[in-house]
């Protein structure tokens, strides 16, 4: 399955601005990729939370230091993934826990990382939805909030939460696959 390169679409100017030391651009870059890096470290390599924090900071420090070496700005996502993978491997090697990986383990890791690439593309599609839709999906799927919590936070009836999530998911799917399947002019919420 091809993965839409949505982060890369906005990447060139962002990377250029980061290279020039633009703090706001750097904030945006970290905001865009922090979930991705965090997930590779925790879900991909399954580091402990404590070790993960060290690697997480090392990843962004290295990305910042070496942005000048990135020849193709559109390769930003892949490059960040590679930096993260390298630092996770280095960390495991230093901790003497990185035994020779079996083919099955490598395949499993590759599958998890491919999943995360797709997840980032979906996440990017989420940012293009109306704020109400993005918010309710983020609360339900990413923050694991209950219908009751979402209802209280957004001030909408609990009985309508499920249908709103369903409509917003349809809309997100449409955005992700490149077409909007929702005809709801309210933005689906």
């Amino acid at each position: 399955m091809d993965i839409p390169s949505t982060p890369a679409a906005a990447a060139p100017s962002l990377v250029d601005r980061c290279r020039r030391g633009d703090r706001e651009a750097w904030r945006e870059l970290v905001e865009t990729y922090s979930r991705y890096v965090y997930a590779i470290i925790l879900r991909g390599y399954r580091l402990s939370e404590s070790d993960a924090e060290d690697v997480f900071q090392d990843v962004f420090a290295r990305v910042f230091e070496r942005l000048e070496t990135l020849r193709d700005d559109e390769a930003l996502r892949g490059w960040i993934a590679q930096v993260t993978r390298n630092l996770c491997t280095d960390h495991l090697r230093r901790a003497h826990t990185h035994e020779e990986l079996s083919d099955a383990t490598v395949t499993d890791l590759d599958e998890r990382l491919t999943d995360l690439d797709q997840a980032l593309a979906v996440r990017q599609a989420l940012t293009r939805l109306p704020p109400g839709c993005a918010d309710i999906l983020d609360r339900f799927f990413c923050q694991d909030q209950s219908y009751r919590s979402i209802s209280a936070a957004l001030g909408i009836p609990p009985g309508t939460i499920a249908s709103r999530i369903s409509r917003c998911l349809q809309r997100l799917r449409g955005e992700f696959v490149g077409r909007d399947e929702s005809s709801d002019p309210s933005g689906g919420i």
Partner: protein
Amino acid sequence: MSMDEHEIGRLLRLLPAAPAEWTQAAQELPFLSAELADIMERARGDGGFRDGLRTDAGATLKQHGYDLSPSVVAHLMRILPDEG
């Protein structure tokens, strides 16, 4: 591309937010390299300063003129040398 809503939901769940303090530190640290190097150098050579950092890092840093966010202070404490 065939991907149903169930799969979209599953993928969304794969990317929870990183801890906010980690993200904030990552956003700030590259612009604080001079201050951090200075603090680390001082901590290596000044036992009193190092002890102060361990006792109350925020207050000690402020007392010495460093204005750092709690996220950066927390990171600093993680990389602080054990001894001078």
